[in-house]
């Protein structure tokens, strides 16, 4: 796998169907991307803490052009940045189930782990589902006519 930084435990957890992010044992900061050393307090000790697969859409982009992403996504597909609940605003990347025509920043989502083929390797990835309840994003002007 090609992760970044000290994120090996993230992939192990995700493969087991769990979401874990590292928290500094000394100052409590949730780090993402994962670090070996806390740049805030200098501690080398981290605890991998479990989080719910739930959060809020921070941004999204719907891809129509064939860039050569994993075939599972089809076209078009929506990539999202999700702010994870109770994680000090840390964000994870993933895709949205379905075409999500009415997706808006601020929408609530729940996630699951899917398998994606990347360059002959199967990796776990996050797939998010929009909650059915009314969007919290109505306070934002959508800006775009999409």
């Amino acid at each position: 796998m090609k992760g970044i930084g000290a994120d090996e435990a993230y992939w192990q957890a995700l493969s087991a169907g769990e979401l874990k992010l590292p928290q500094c044992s000394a100052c409590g900061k949730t780090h993402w991307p994962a670090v070996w050393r806390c740049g805030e307090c200098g501690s080398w000790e981290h605890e991998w803490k479990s989080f719910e697969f739930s959060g809020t859409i921070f941004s999204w982009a719907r891809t129509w052009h064939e860039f050569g992403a994993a075939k599972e996504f089809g076209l078009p597909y929506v990539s999202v940045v999700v702010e994870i609940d109770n994680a000090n605003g840390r964000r994870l990347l993933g895709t949205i189930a379905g075409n999500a025509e009415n997706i808006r920043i601020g929408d609530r989502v729940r996630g699951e782990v899917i398998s994606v083929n990347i360059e002959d390797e199967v990796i776990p990835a996050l797939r998010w589902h929009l909650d059915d309840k009314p969007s919290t994003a109505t306070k934002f002007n959508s800006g775009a006519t999409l």
Partner: protein
Amino acid sequence: MNRASQAKVAVAGVGLRQYKRGGATLPEQGILIRAIIDACEDAGFNPADVDGFVSYGDDKNEPVRLMPDLGTKELRWNSQVWGGGGGGIAAAFGQAAAAIISGQANAVIVFRALAQGNSGRMSAAVMRHHLNDHIMGAGLIAPAQICALRAQRMFEYHQVPHSVTEELVKASYYHGAKNPEASSFGKELDLEAYRTGRWVTEPFRLFDCSRENDGAGALLLVSTEQARDLKKPPITLLGVANGASQGWGDLIENDTDYASAGFKPVADRLWEQTGLQPKDIDVVQLYENFSAQGIASLIDHGFCTYENVAEFVKFENLIADGGKLPVNTSGGNFAQGFIHGIGTPIEAIRVLRGESANNVANAKTCLLAGGPGAPTVSSAIFSVDDR
């Protein structure tokens, strides 16, 4: 660089060879040699006396391999700015200036060369630098997609109106249409085509994206003193800043000021270094990989804000014919051509010399705003020699 060293280094010559993507008449290294010789001839400088080279964006042309063709007597400086995108473009001038001011080299070429036959698609090359399973697992494998995520945040959350990107793209094509060297020469932007162009990644349609060219560009830097004895009037490097501040970088989309282009701390340093403010800038060469990132760059540099961006980014303000802040007088990456941005500093020099296809009367200062949204970004200010 500090104020004491300001304007000690100048651009003495420029060279640009541009072709359609996949249409270069020579392999990459050959085009680059031509562009470097062009820059030396422009300056009236013996290419054999060039003793330093700087590039950016993972350029593959190691300077030592250029020596036999250039007749280089001695290579004293060769370096490249870290980063896979155009974020390092202005920083390359900082390295060249550091080499010259510290006495480690006398004549430094800043260059970038790219031919699809040799380096493949530029967008793919840029992304190879960044790919990891976090972004690939989200289907993100092209710069357009990452920039689209940030643009969507700017449009939807910060409520920047979509109309501003159209104004910027229109101004670029207005200039490109009048520039015989531009890929869009003779063709102004067809607004209907812009508005209905195919989606690449929402919120970007086709004409929101720069499209790649083959080619090479080179700029020759020497001390300002030496430049005064050469063929063309020196254009001095007044200031340059590069980098990232805490909360910005290669953070798998966890950057703090997410919808920005990452320039705020860099721009602050540039203004502090030069003692100038946005109002002192006469013309801007704005690296626009994508339309929204060009807008974010203007905001980051302090020309406008999320609140007043629509009043500022208007076609009539952005064009060379009397606009308050002419932007991309050659047509920029959108309409002149896109060789990983190397055309933008070359146009900065040309417009200050009065050699542009779209000159700006009495222009004394030109901001080069480098590749926006990259993990590290850079900007520079060029000025006419005020001796």
